[in-house]
C-alpha cells in the first residue's frame, strides 16, 4: 500500500480534527490518523509529541489525566474552544489550498 509522509504543517490540522471527534491520548491520535486515512498517512512519531506540546502551549488543546482501558494513567488531549475555532479556520484554508492544487493538476 502506498504511504506518504504528512505535508509540512498539515499535522496540526489533522490532530485538531482527530480531537474534534473525541478526546484521545497520544498513541491513539497517531493510530486514528492512520486509520482515517486508510493507512495512507503515517504520523512520524517524532513530530507528534512536539506538535502536541506546541498546540497545547498555544492553547488550542488541553490535556488531562484519565484512566485507560487497562487501568493505566494516560494523558488525554481534547480540543479547547480556541482550538475549535482554529480548526474551522485551518480547515477552510486547507480546502481552499487543496482545491487550488487540484484545479491546477486537473488542467490539461
Amino acid at each position: 500500500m502506498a504511504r506518504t509522509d504528512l505535508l509540512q504543517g498539515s499535522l496540526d490540522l489533522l490532530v485538531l480534527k482527530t480531537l474534534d471527534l473525541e478526546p484521545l491520548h497520544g498513541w491513539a491520535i497517531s493510530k486514528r490518523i492512520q486509520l482515517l486515512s486508510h493507512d495512507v498517512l503515517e504520523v512520524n512519531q517524532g513530530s507528534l509529541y512536539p506538535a502536541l506540546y506546541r498546540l497545547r502551549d498555544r492553547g488550542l488543546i488541553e490535556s488531562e489525566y484519565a484512566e485507560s482501558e487497562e487501568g493505566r494513567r494516560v494523558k488525554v488531549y481534547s480540543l479547547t474552544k480556541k482550538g475549535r475555532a482554529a480548526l474551522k479556520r485551518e480547515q477552510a484554508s486547507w480546502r481552499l489550498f487543496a482545491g487550488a492544487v487540484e484545479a491546477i493538476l486537473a488542467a490539461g
Partner: protein
Amino acid sequence: MGAWRWLRRRWDVLFRKRGVEAELDEEIRTHLDEEIRQNVQAGMSPAEARRRALVAFGGVERHKEEVRNVRGVRVLDDLVQDVRVSFRSFLKAPAFLVAVLLTLGLGIGANVAMFGILDASLFRPLPYPRADRLVMGRVTWNGRVGRTVSGPDFFDYRQQSSSFEDLAAYTPFVLRATVTGGGAPERVRYIYASTRFFRALGVEPVLGRGFAPDEGELGGPRVLILSYGFWQRRFGGDRDILGRSVTIAGIPFTVVGVMPRDFRFAVDVDIWVPLQRGGAWAQARQFHNFILVGRLADGVSVKQAQADVDRISESLAETYPETNRNKGLNLTPLKEALAQPYKATLGVLVAAVAVLLLIACGNVAGLLLARGSARRSELAVRSVMGAGRSRLARQLLTENVLLALGAGVVGIALATWLQRGILAFVSMDRLTPVKAGVSLPMLGFALALSVLTVVIFGALPSLRVARVEPGADLQSGTRTTGGRAATRARNVLVTGQVALTVVLLVVSGLLLRTLRELRGVDLGFDPDHLLTAAVQIPSTKYPTSASRVEFFRELQERVAALPGVEGVGFITRLPVRGSGGNVRVDLPEHFGTAGVFGKMADQRTVMPGYFHAMGIPLVAGRDVSLVDDSAATPVVVISKALAESLFPGEDALGRTVGVDVGEAEPARFEVVGVVGDVVMDHPANGPYPAMYFPYPQAAGTGLDIAVRYSGNAGAATTSVRGVLRTLNTDVPLDEPATMHDVLGRSLSGQQAIAVVVSLFGVVALLLAAIGMYGVLAFQVSRRTHEIGIRMALGASGGAVVSSVVRGGLILVALGLAVGIPASLFAARLVGGLLFGVGATDPVTYVGVALFLGAVATVACMLPAYRAARTDPVVAFRTE
C-alpha cells in the same frame, strides 16, 4: 493572557523541569507500551514486539530534545545541562583543568596587566582640565624636532602669538639645591617655570597664589611655590607658611603658594621657582633650556597654532640670523609628546604579551585536541543516543567558554602581580604615575579577552571533535586516539608555537645583546671602585671664589688622606650622572662666519686631580691647576676628539679657542692640555667632545665628587661623609652612588625591556616545549603497536629514540623556517631600541636556533625513551 501563559510556561520549564520532563517520559512510555501491546496482539513475541516499537518510534532522546526544542526553551535548558556536564567532566580531569587555567590564565593575565598600564597612562586624558587643548612646544633644527627652546625665544613666542590662552615654559631637567634653616639642611628638587605655567595647565594652588607677572621679570621679588609633599614633609602642612622665607642655596625666597596634593607634571619636584626674563637659564638666545606648554585658545587647532608660531619663527630668523637661522618651534599635543619616549618599549611589550597569549592558546588547543581524542568514545555514545552534532559542538563550546572564563579569573588574579613586575621595569612616570591594581576596564578587557581566546583555541578542536563517526569511533575501542587529521592539526599548532617562540627569543636575544654592548661601551674612564656624590655649598657662607676653592681643596686633601682612597676629583657634572652644558666652541676667528653651530662640546669645570681620579689619560700638556685663577690667563683642557676637530693634524697645545658665552664676542681660552675622550651622558651616545675649565676661574657652589676607593663602597661613603661633616655640618653628601649604580640607572630602560621580553621569551619557550612534549607523547602512545612490531623485528632502542626525536625536530625545523623570517621582520620593528647589534645579527639567530633545538630535544627525549622501553608483548596485548 498570552503573556501570562508564556511566563507560566517558562516558569514551569525552568523551575519545574523535573515535573515536565517526567510528564514527557511517562507519555512516551505509554506510547511505546500501546505499540508493544498491539504488536503482541498481531502475534509477535514480546521481545520482537518491543524491538519493533522502539524502531518505529526512533531515538527516544531525539524526540525528547525535539519536544524541548518546540517549547522554545531549549537553549537555556541545554545551557544549564551543558554547564553541569562540563563541571562533571572537568572534575574528572583535574590535571587538564589546572594546566589549561594556568597556561591561559598567564596569557590573559599578562595582557590584562599590560592593558591596565596602557589604560591608566595612555588611554586616559592627562589629569588636567580640558587636557586635549594642551600642546608641547619643542625646538626644531632645519625642521627636525629637537628638545629645548631658548628663554628669549619663548618670551617672543608668548608675546607675539595669538593662538594660545596661555603659553608657558619649564626646565625639563631637575635642579637640586640645599634648603637650610628651620631644621636639618635638606636637598630639594626644583625646576624653573614661567609665571603662567600652572594657569596653562589649568591647576590653581591649593594654598596661596600662583606667580605674579612682576615675579617673572629680572630683579623681581624672589618667590617660590611648594609642592604639597614638600610642604607636608618639611613644614608639617603649616598653613601659615605663606609669606614665610625659605633659604635655598643661601638665598632667601618667599613662599607664595602650595600646589594640590595630586598635582604633578612630568617630573617630581619639591619647589617651583619663577623663570625670569633674562634671568638664570634664559640669558641668551643660544642657550636652550626650556620646554613649552601651551593651552590653545578656543577654536584654534594645533595646525593653526603651528602656522602661527611658524610665522613668528621666520621673523625671529630674520631679526636674529646669527642664532635663529634654521630654528623653529614644533607644537605637538601634550599627551602625544609625553608618551613618545615610551612608544617603542610599550609597542614591544604589547606585541610580546599578545604573542604569549597566542602561544598559550596554541597549547590549550593542543590539550583540547588530545582530550577530544580521548573523549571520542564518550561523544560517540552520546551521538548514538540521539544527541545532534550541533548539540555536541555546543556542549564542547560551553566547556571552552567555561575554561576561558576560569582562565580570565586566574588572569585577573595574576594581573596585579604581573603589573607590579612590569612597572618595576617600565615606569610610566613621565605621563602619569601608574599604580598596580585591578580596575574596572581591566575586568572588561579580561572578559573580552577570554571570549576571544575561546574563538582562537576552541574553534578547531570543537569542530573536529563534533565530527564524530559513531561506527568507527566505537569500533576502534579504548585505544582511540583521533585520526590523522587530529595529528596534523596538532603538528600545525606546535609549528606555530615554535615560530612565535622564535620571534620572542630573537627579539629578547637582540635586546640582551644590546644591553651587553651598552655595558661594554668603553666609557673613557674606569668605572670600577668609583664612588660618586654631589656637594653643594651655601653661597652665603662661601661668597668668594677663593673661599669656595679653599673649601674643595681642603675636602680633597682630607678625603685623599683616608685609608684606601686612591684619588679624589671634583667636576661640575660627572659623566653619566649629569648631562648638558653643550656650547659652541671654535677658533675665535671662525665666529660670525661659520654659523651658529659649527662645533659643539660639553663644558665642565674641574678641580686639579679629576683626570687622575677618573682614570682619564692625559694625552698632552698638563692638568688644570689651582694657580689658574681668575687673575691668570684663561686656560682650558680639551678632549682628544675636540683637539682633532679644531686643529686637525696640528698640535693643540698653546692654541686659543673661542667659546660662545651668549655675547657678541666669544670668550678666549688657551689650550694647556689634551685628555682622553669620555662618554658624557649615556653610553649609547658614545664619547663626546668636552672642555674642562679650571675651577678657580669659575667657582660655582656645587660640584660632583668622584672618589677612587678600594674595599667596600658603603664604608667609603661613610668615611667621606664623616670628613665632609668635619668641614661644615650644613653641607650634606648628596645622592652618593657607585659609578656602576649610576650606569645601571642610566641603562635601566634598556635593561627593563630586555629583562621583561626575555622573561616572556622563556615562558613562551616553556609552553612550546610542553606543547611539543604533548604531541610526541601522544604520537608515541598511538604508535605503541607499530613500535612493538619494529622492536620485535629487531629494531634497537636507539633507533626508536632517534625516530621519535626526528619527528619532533622536524616540527622545530618547520617552526624555525616560519619563525626566522618573522623574526627578521619583528627585529626591524624594534630596530630603534637596539645598540651595537644589527637586526640581522647572526649570533642571535643561530643562538636562538641552537637553544630552541636543545630545549626541543630534551622535550622529545622523554616520550622517545618511553617508546624505546616499549615491551613488544605488552604492545600487542593493548590491541
